[in-house]
């Protein structure tokens, strides 16, 4: 099976500072790959390289076998990779529904003059975009807030709206940057269920997360980064018992608990 996302020997530095290097990974449809590591390990930099916000210095990124290394973000999105942001980046002065409809941009035809005359074809395409967006809001549990302002949503719901908006671009690969950050336990439980049902749709998920319980429960595989380099990769039980991981990351927190 060809992986949905495959990364080979990826590297990125800023001046003399090496942010990530030597990263290789594969993500398969319907599976969850988690990326963990201490703060500053280069997880978000990795996401920025994958989504086209940064251009990697070395290595390659390919989606479904086609090379997307160094493409601009909108082209990466069009080829089927979408993401959420660690510090939520919604369109605050738009309604919840409109936020999701923006995600339909590359999946709806342009109609150079259809919008002026409001031709039947244009109307159908608008209705379709609206229907798909409402379905996605239903899917993430925000259907009743469709007409609210994005900025008026509580924090936990904003995270879910960001996921719905990313899904609207019809991604084959979805990158989630700390979907559970700043949430209370019940919100995290809801988010876990949501992540699980996105996986069940056959989307390849790559998730950065700090909540270890969440990571251990949902991940099919885990990649551990430290100082920008991969130090371990495997199924959750392997990673949990890997001495380097315990030393770099888990060990410290377990000692704290003892």
């Amino acid at each position: 099976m060809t992986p949905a996302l495959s990364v080979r020997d990826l590297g990125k530095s800023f001046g003399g500072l090496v942010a990530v290097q030597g990263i290789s990974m594969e993500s398969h449809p319907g599976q969850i790959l988690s990326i963990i590591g201490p703060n500053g390990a280069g997880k978000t930099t990795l996401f920025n390289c994958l989504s086209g916000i940064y251009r990697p210095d070395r290595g390659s990124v390919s989606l479904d076998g086609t090379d997307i290394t160094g493409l601009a973000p909108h082209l990466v999105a069009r080829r089927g990779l979408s993401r959420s942001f660690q510090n939520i980046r919604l369109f605050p002065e738009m309604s919840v529904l409109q936020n999701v409809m923006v995600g339909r941009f590359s999946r709806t035809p342009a109609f150079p003059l259809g919008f002026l005359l409001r031709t039947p074809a244009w109307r159908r395409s608008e209705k379709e975009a609206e229907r798909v967006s409402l379905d996605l809001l239903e899917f993430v549990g925000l259907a009743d807030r469709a007409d609210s302002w994005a900025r008026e949503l509580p924090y936990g719901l904003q995270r879910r709206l960001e996921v719905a908006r990313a899904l609207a671009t019809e991604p084959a690969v979805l990158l989630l940057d700390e979907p559970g950050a700043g949430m209370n336990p019940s919100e995290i439980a809801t988010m876990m269920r949501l992540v699980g049902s996105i996986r069940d749709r056959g989307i390849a998920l790559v998730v950065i997360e700090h909540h270890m319980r969440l990571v251990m429960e949902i991940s099919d595989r885990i990649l551990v980064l430290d100082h920008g380099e991969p130090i371990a990769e495997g199924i959750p039980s392997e990673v949990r018992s890997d001495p380097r991981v315990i030393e770099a990351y888990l060990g410290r927190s377990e000692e704290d608990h003892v």
Partner: protein
Amino acid sequence: MTGRSRLVRRWSAGLAGIFLLTAPFLWTKVHGDLATGNVRLSFVPSNALGFLSVVVPGFAIGASLVWMAGLWGRLGPRRPLVATAANRLLERPWALLALGAALSCSGTLMSAKALSLGSFVCLYMMLALGLNVTIGFTGLLVLGYAAFYATGAYAFALVAKFLPGFPAWAAFPLGFCTAAATGFLVGLPCLRLRGDYLAIVTLGFAEAFRELVRNLPAAGGDMGLILPDTSRIRGLGPLSAAQAAWICGVWLVLLLSVSVHRLRHSRTGRAWIAIREDETAAAMMGIPVVRLKLLAFSISAGVGGLAGAYFAGFTGFVDPSTSTFDQSVLVLSMVILGGMGSLPGVLAGAALLYLVPTLLRDQIPQIADYRLFFFGSILVAMMLLRPQGLLGSPRHKLELEGSG
């Protein structure tokens, strides 16, 4: 109470400061010859009194207007009724046709002065609608918008000069296309960069354009160009030329309002707003940011050019003063006063900022000298007290999404 008295104190302090800073220049007059060093300063109290007699009441009126607007923003209805009603109207083509017909008919009853005022209001409404596409929708600052207005006007005047009998109706698409193409070329290098480069580049372009036409013999230099009679907007049947210009302006404003409204409520419009709200997130949604910014700016410039062709068509002349910084700031103030991004808002802003100074000037001639002072004050005050503008509540965008 304390908040309000603090506000009053701040305003009066500001006023006193401006007065003190300007007073030495206004109160005194330089006599003699600087070269020989025989210079004498004399005190001219009447200058200062004249300044005070205009600025104090003007400032008081402006401050109370802004204060009321601020109060309205805090306490008033969350959806301004005027804006909501106007947005509903834009969704109903038949109602707009009726409105256009009614305004056209009223042209036969209007005096020559009213027709001229009305035509200028239409002109500024077109300019405000056009500038709103870049500033209000896409969030890009343009400081030299008058350049595109002048581009359209000069394109028409030059074509009419070399092609006698070139009709006014054909000038509208000509003005639009010329200015849109110019806008595209000006925007191409700077829209690839992030930040307010467009503001600076358009500012420079407007100045360069003015110097260009001033020094180009074919463009008439400082004297400008006079359009041949055959190219002006002419009377038709029982209609006089002034009535024809008014009717033409009304229909152009209606056409542009509907077009811009429909553009806003389409996939393209949503992408513009998304770019304004968060450029990176918009790109991640598959939106080609640079291309859409260029599209917005070209359309904006094109509408400016159309307005320029209309101006040339009904006044019958163009000169380099169409491309001054004053003009750009005037249109910018209209958009900000009315409410960036709100169509009813920018239309109201255009009408207010054209009519109030013009009618006041007839009453108090000195006020013309302080025009820019008032525009500057309005811009600063609106930004501080009601950044969304008089009619620009973002909430009204919500209820009319979709084609209805």
